[in-house]
């Protein structure tokens, strides 16, 4: 089963939930893989310090021009919606970092002067800590095209057993790429006006994708009841509530898993998993 942990904005506790849930599952002897798809800032590894045993560079297709075949007709620059090619007085200039990899230029070129080559956008890293598999993507700094990397990270993480996917925050392409294909999405939020506003955006997105989902309220004792009211009204189950707990915040700040020092929360993770199983079945 693949469980995606997502939220409409950053800083709600996505990574705290992902890392502790993955730790809990693997400590119960279950085959578990933690997949960090927050490729701009993969932070789960901080909590595990895994042994990295493998990696793969991830490429994207981009065009390359063979000058002797090029007639300078400019059709490639015309078809490109992303301004990744220009044709200047018969010379084609290519800007690979703007290319989305649609291959339109290669298909349209009448003299086959453009051919496909690749450029690196980031790296998938494979690690292990005790019995837990950890897969993370690291986007090259300054790189804008994260979805192809996220796709690759998920492929590597698609193992047997339970897969926990920590998604990038927000509701744009990277988040969608990360949650796609999951069996279940857990949306993490806080009981505040900001938390509620961002939760609503995330709910709209997940509904668009037609995936089963539920809500986790983190730091559930700090705010008001509006998130509860909203979930009740929208018939969204709330399947985990973690109270404001200074020790959890401190554990996070030091890069420690709070379940290790606060084992009384284990029961909540156990209930969470039971709830998820029920929701996925129906």
């Amino acid at each position, binding site marked *: 089963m693949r469980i995606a942990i997502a939220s409409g904005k950053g800083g709600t506790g996505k990574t705290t939930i992902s890392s502790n849930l993955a730790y809990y599952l693997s400590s119960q002897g279950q085959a578990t893989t933690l997949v960090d798809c927050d490729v701009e800032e993969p932070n789960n590894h901080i909590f595990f310090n895994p042994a990295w045993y493998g990696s793969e560079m991830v490429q994207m297709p981009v065009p390359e021009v063979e000058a002797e075949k090029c007639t300078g007709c400019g059709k490639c620059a015309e078809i490109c919606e992303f301004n990744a090619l220009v044709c200047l007085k018969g010379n084609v200039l290519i800007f690979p970092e703007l290319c989305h990899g649609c291959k339109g230029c290669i298909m349209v070129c009448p003299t086959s002067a453009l051919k496909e080559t690749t450029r690196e956008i980031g790296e998938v890293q494979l690690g292990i800590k005790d019995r837990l598999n950890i897969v993370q993507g690291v986007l090259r700094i300054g790189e804008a095209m994260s979805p192809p990397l996220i796709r690759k990270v998920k492929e590597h993480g698609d193992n047997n057993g339970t897969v926990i996917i920590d998604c990038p925050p927000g509701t744009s392409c990277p988040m969608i790429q990360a949650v796609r294909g999951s069996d279940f999405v857990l949306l993490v939020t806080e009981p*505040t006006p900001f938390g509620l*506003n961002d939760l609503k955006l995330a709910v709209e*997105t997940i509904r668009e994708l037609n995936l089963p989902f539920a809500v986790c309220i983190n730091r559930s004792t700090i705010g008001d009841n509006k998130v509860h009211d909203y979930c009740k009204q929208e018939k969204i189950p709330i399947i985990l509530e973690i109270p404001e707990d200074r020790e959890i915040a401190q554990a996070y700040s*030091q890069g420690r898993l709070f379940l290790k020092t606060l084992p009384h929360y284990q029961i909540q993770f156990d209930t969470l998993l039971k709830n998820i199983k029920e929701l996925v079945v129906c």
Partner: protein
Amino acid sequence: MLKEIVVISGKGGTGKTSVVAALAALFDNKVLADCDVDAADLHLVLNPEIIENHEFWSGKTANIDKSKCINCNKCLELCQFEAISDEMVIDKISCEGCGVCFHFCPSGAISLQDNLAGHWYISKTKYGTFVHAKLGIAEENSGKLVTLVKNKARELAAKENKSIILVDGPPGIGCPVIASISGANLVLIITEPTLSGIHDLTRVLSLNKHFNVQTAVCINKSDINQEMTASIIKNCQENNIPVVGVIPYDNSVTKAQIQGLSILEFNPESHTAQIIRKMQEEIITLIS
């Protein structure tokens, strides 16, 4: 001379927007802008009255006219984004608007349409004119809407003869952040003393250095890990970056947010309010 202050955080959830709301209550003669267009929250404490509502168009989306489609499957074969289903329906979320299907469709059944990617607004608030925006679900945040919001704020500031633009910036370190900090007189980074907070702070600082903008740091929730707070301060001092505020965790900031207020209005005498007042004075010194 118009000055631009941009507040960013790298990591989400550090309290960036709450600090912006508090600064909004303190600065006079300003225009406000929310460049966090992906998850805009500042309006929740500013209670804006929307004066102008504009559509934001960006990119393209393909559309298949079923009556002209001859089911040749050419588009399905050529699409690199798996955006076309076997039933010849385009998945608007996956479609990148590259136009390949449109160009190669032998029966002219596919059109490429402009894509409504969001909205932007000009509003009146208790703290002055406010420019904000909302990006549509599943839209790409290329920084273009951020640029638009910021340019509108500049335009309005010039027109209204304002001396300051206060900007709530986007999270992360990608295109939207770069778009929001360019041209800023001061970038204020709100961080927290956690390992991931420090990690992101380092990345944001190198970005600012790269773009050569004046930077100051504010450490929020400083008492979660005092050792780490001390090491952030030391690190900033060594790099000549002023630390203009150190704010301990204060639940009344959340309580203020629930009332739709900034901490300056909710509890003007609180310790947090006092720290932010001092921080504002230091910011004025830095930009003048």
